């Protein structure tokens, strides 16, 4: 019953030689399907970078767009600024997420379920209203926090929402939930045998953490860091809202400029700049694969175990205080501002005399908005369910099977995240406009599943690489069918990953705006578009009410998913 392989020559755990023909055929069929739905829109983006006009319009092939970005100091500056922001942001986010994941999965911190749920819930607060709340809180002159702390803050010091520091810190806070959701299941799945062995050998807690636990978690941490880096490079709302007014431009805000703020949209240059981002992502993927290829990370085997709990002693209350403070600052405070804002006559003017239900009345009395709510729920359910099936099977083929298309599948799963959302949305439009499902909720489901694949598949691969092949081999020897293996071995092991990925995909479907804006039609409106429209007309009060409804929908889905996961997915 090996729990960890000593061999470094074995690239990863893999089940060799499934004899069922259906299993052998499945990866290729899946790769073909994913290649079509992922590469076709991406192909449109690539094509646009070599054309004088958008795909579909009369134009010529050209390299002008590439030449433009190669010589433009603005583009080069944006690339450098992106890394200047992303690197500290990711370091901070992954550090915080790792600390929380370890504390909640492996220590005896009080109220751990509550804390874990609250931190995971942070992921579901839509970024735009969350950022607007922070603008209300820390605008240099009029921010509530700056005004409230004026007598306490030293000298002329003020928090400044429009600064490099805010971009890094708020960006990291917004990013923490993703690495946390990836790392938490991995921390839970560590076999305690190695830690116990180290403990018996005299290792103290710090040595144990540094020499055993962290190396075991290297794949999950690297995957989380890589994903956070890619997500950080693709991040848009924070940089647009806080960076642009301060003259700080990154990759995505420059691309937005090229698309939205030139005399004619520069589809070619925007696509070319996106290709640069894609190149960085491919490099990142390559580096990650190189690191992971040298090690084996099997920690889950046929032996039953419970994760070893570290007793923090009195420090557990300190840990609790730190966690609660973080949650109040990153979640309660901005969410309370958002809720209060939805009850005001005018956005940003929070005062007892300004209290009104105007925003809520307007939101609830509009048939169009109610249709948007219904569509949002439906699209969320379909996206999450279909996405979990696709990403779990695809992840299995990448992390558990040896076959020639594995690297290609892995790359195909990553690709959508490497293209900024607004450019990928154009790719979806150019690719899907001819389909009968265009302007229906089904085209949204397709687009959102593709958008969610990179992250949802990470939920599964980061857990699957920890599982020893012996479990499946034993099942095969005993004549268990593949369905039996899926239900009796994988289902309980993957329960946290299934719930995490399902919720993640649901959230993607509920809050993604750019694709929805280009693909919806009459009758298929969704809530994210409605919020955009209210924000665009300056009615952030109604937008806040809708954002709370959006969060409410996700919260209900979150609770239901966890309940279903607990009752139907865990081993009995």
């Amino acid at each position, binding site marked *: 019953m090996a729990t960890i392989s000593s061999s470094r020559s074995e690239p990863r755990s893999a089940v060799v030689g499934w004899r069922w023909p259906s299993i052998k055929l499945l990866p290729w069929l899946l790769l073909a399907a994913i290649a079509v739905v992922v590469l076709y829109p991406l192909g449109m983006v*690539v094509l646009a970078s070599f054309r004088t006009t958008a795909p579909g319009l*009369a134009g010529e092939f050209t390299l002008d767009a590439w030449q433009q970005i190669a010589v433009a100091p603005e583009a080069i500056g944006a690339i450098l600024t992106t890394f200047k922001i992303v690197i500290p942001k990711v370091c901070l986010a992954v550090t915080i997420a790792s600390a929380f994941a370890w504390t909640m999965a492996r220590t005896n911190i009080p109220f751990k379920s509550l804390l874990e749920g609250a931190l995971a819930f942070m992921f579901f607060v839509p970024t735009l209203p969350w950022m607007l709340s922070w603008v209300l809180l820390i605008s240099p002159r009029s921010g509530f926090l700056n005004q409230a702390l004026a007598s306490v803050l030293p000298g002329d010091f003020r928090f400044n929402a429009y600064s490099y520091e805010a971009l890094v810190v708020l960006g990291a806070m917004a990013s923490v939930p993703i690495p946390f959701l990836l790392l938490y299941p991995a921390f839970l799945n560590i076999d305690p045998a190695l830690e116990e062995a180290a403990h018996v050998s005299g290792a103290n807690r710090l040595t144990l953490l540094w020499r055993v636990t962290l190396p075991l978690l290297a794949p999950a941490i690297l995957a989380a860091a890589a994903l956070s880096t890619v997500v950080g490079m693709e991040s848009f709302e924070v940089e647009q809202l806080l960076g642009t007014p301060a003259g700080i431009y990154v990759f995505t805000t420059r691309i937005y400029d090229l698309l939205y703020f030139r005399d004619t949209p520069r589809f070619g240059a925007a696509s070319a700049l996106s290709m640069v981002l894609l190149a960085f992502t491919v490099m990142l993927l390559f580096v990650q694969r190189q690191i992971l290829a040298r090690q084996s990370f099997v920690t889950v085997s046929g032996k039953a175990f419970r994760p070893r709990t570290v007793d923090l002693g009195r420090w557990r209350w300190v840990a609790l205080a730190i966690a609660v403070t973080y949650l109040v600052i990153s979640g309660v405070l901005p969410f309370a501002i958002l809720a209060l804002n939805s009850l005001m006559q005018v956005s940003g003017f929070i005062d007892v005399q300004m209290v009104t239900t105007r925003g809520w009345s307007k939101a609830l009395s509009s048939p169009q908005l109610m249709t948007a709510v219904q569509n949002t729920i439906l699209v969320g359910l379909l996206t999450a369910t279909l996405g979990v099936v696709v990403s779990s099977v695809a992840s299995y083929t990448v992390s558990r099977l040896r076959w020639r298309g594995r690297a290609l599948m892995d790359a195909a799963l990553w690709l959508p995240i490497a293209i900024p959302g607004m450019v990928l949305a154009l790719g979806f439009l150019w690719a899907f406009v001819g389909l009968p499902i265009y302007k229906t909720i089904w085209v949204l489901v397709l687009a959102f599943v593709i958008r969610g694949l990179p992250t949802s598949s990470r939920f599964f691969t980061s857990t699957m690489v920890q599982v020893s092949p012996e479990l499946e081999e034993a099942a095969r020897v005993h004549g268990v069918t593949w369905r039996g293996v899926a239900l009796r071995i994988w289902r309980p092991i993957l329960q946290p990953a299934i719930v995490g990925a399902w919720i993640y995909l649901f959230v993607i479907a509920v809050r993604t705006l750019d694709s929805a804006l280009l693909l919806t039609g009459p009758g298929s409106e969704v809530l994210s578009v409605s919020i955009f429209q209210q924000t665009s007309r300056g009615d952030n009060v109604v937008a806040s009410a809708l954002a709370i409804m959006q969060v409410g929908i996700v919260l209900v889905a979150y609770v239901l998913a966890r309940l279903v996961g607990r009752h139907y997915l865990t081993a009995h």
Partner: protein
Amino acid sequence: MRSRVSRLIAALLVVVVGAACSAAPPAGLASGSAAGAPGPHADNASTAQLSPQDQQAWDDTVAAAKKEGEVLWSNTQAIDWMDRVAARFTQKYGIKVNEEVSPPPDFNARYSAELAAGKQSFDIRTGGGPTMRDLDARQVTVSLGTLPVMSEPKTVWIENPFQDIESGKGNSVFYSLAGYYFLVNNQLCPPDNCPKSYKDLADARYKGKILLSDPLPAGGSPGTRWAAYAYLEYGQDYLTRVAENVAALSRSEANAQQQIAKGEYALYLMTPGAPTTIVGLPRPWPFRLVVPEDGQMVLLLGLSYLQKAPHPNAARVLANFILSQEGQQVIASGSGDTFNRKDVTPANPELVTISDKLFPRNPDTFEFAATYAQYIPFIDNPLKARGLK
């Protein structure tokens, strides 16, 4: 390992490029031709009174519009009056109005993709004059034909809505005329220490007071048009000195208003017709509107009827309704929503009044829409030198 990666990258490139080349929608946004559009009664527009034949034709158009049953109306930004006009129009004609909001780049991408795929869904597009005239210049629009409102006396209009049609330059009609103001915070910009004219903006006393609408080419932001008009009147040195006084740039008129009202910045150049949620604040307001002493800049807001509109009759009936007295009154009943008829009563006159004195060299004309972007570098460069862009 290196060769494996090379093979992977090569395979990816082959698949990606192959997918793109084989699957590209056929080229095809027709240019220079109105062949696809006009639908019935697509005669050149005229300001003559409707003849009995035209009246009969219009009645037929309305009947056909009712048969079509719906119309897709796209605007550059979400606006309250769109909801109100759509509701009243549906009530009057029984034709459902599907509202769609998309900034020009989204709209252009979607419209051209749909046209190329033969799936055109848009009927009517509204937005700022430069945006509409850009559609005209790209020959995406077609003539609205003869509408009943065209037979009304010219004196009813604040600004001739059919000027481009009459001059043969475009197909857009203009439903609204908006004047620019300074929106100022009372505390940070008290009357005795606040710019009173565009010229004053360059005064070094006002350093750090100005929140400037980012001068952007797409559609022309308030900052773009200000820069163009002001350059023509006051020159490069003026723009450079104003740039020295700019505290920050804004790309959201709605947020900028709130920042002024909250006291984050002292002064912002704005157009009425932009979202005006801050008028919901209790009086006395913490802000005021200042009409510049050296004249008011203006902006026309337009409406275009799109090529291959799937509901051509409903589109024309809606266009006529928006310009009618009834439709314009619905628009004017909103706070700060601008219009183009003299025979309507605005809900909040102080927000929509057009000054008698217009800023010199202030024509929001067809030609200007095609050239204003060339003035952007004159303000962009000093802003970049200050690290604001």
